[in-house]
């Protein structure tokens, strides 16, 4: 049972969350990234996520393993969508269970930050005006750094 997965179709959160429930865990923190109707002030119709799946899975698994050693948590998991997504669709989910809420919140935040920074997944946005583009945040010298979800 891997803690990180790439999903090429919509997935249910409930069974993923249920796997994190433990009698010794008093706290659960989760994060979800949804497709917004705008980004950088432009009206967005939807997007496509592409991944280098083999590398994304191994790098994602490393992040989750590292979270288990860095934080006093009971368990953690993350799933990231690829493929075509519409506004309001779930793009990424992170769940963390822990004895106490400090570790649950810290680990959850750390995992989503690392996934966004390290996992080879790219977002291709389609805009209401008809054009589309790949988002390549850090190296994008023509636009300000994109820090949003």
């Amino acid at each position: 049972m891997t803690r990180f997965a790439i999903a090429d179709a919509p997935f249910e959160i409930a069974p993923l969350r249920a796997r994190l429930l433990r009698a010794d865990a008093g706290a659960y923190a989760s994060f979800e990234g949804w497709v917004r109707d705008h980004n950088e002030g432009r009206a967005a119709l939807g997007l496509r996520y592409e991944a280098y799946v083999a590398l994304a899975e191994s790098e994602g698994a490393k992040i989750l393993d590292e979270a288990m050693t860095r934080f006093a948590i009971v368990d953690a998991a993350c799933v990231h969508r690829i493929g075509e997504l519409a506004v309001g669709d779930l793009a990424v989910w992170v769940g963390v269970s822990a004895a106490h809420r400090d570790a649950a919140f810290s680990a959850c935040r750390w995992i989503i930050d690392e996934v966004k920074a390290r996992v080879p997944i790219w977002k291709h946005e389609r805009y209401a005006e008809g054009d589309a583009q790949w988002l390549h945040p850090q190296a994008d010298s023509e636009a300000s750094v994109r820090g949003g979800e």
Partner: protein
Amino acid sequence: MTRATVLYFAGLRDAAGIAQETVDHDGDLAALYAALRAKHGFAWPQASLRVSLDGAFARWSDTPHEGAEIAFIPPVSGG
């Protein structure tokens, strides 16, 4: 000469016009990117990318073996 497969993703694939290609090359991954950047006109300097070898992040000074799978990783935007 070593034969390897290079994968392109996202903006790099758009710029190359292909998703992958077979290359024959001597030297390290940095030299390979420099050659392919010249060939395809990639805008990104090497410092903006990461590189992977056989599905794991690698160093630019690594040298690909025969049959290796190489990918240049443009800045990611998951989440």
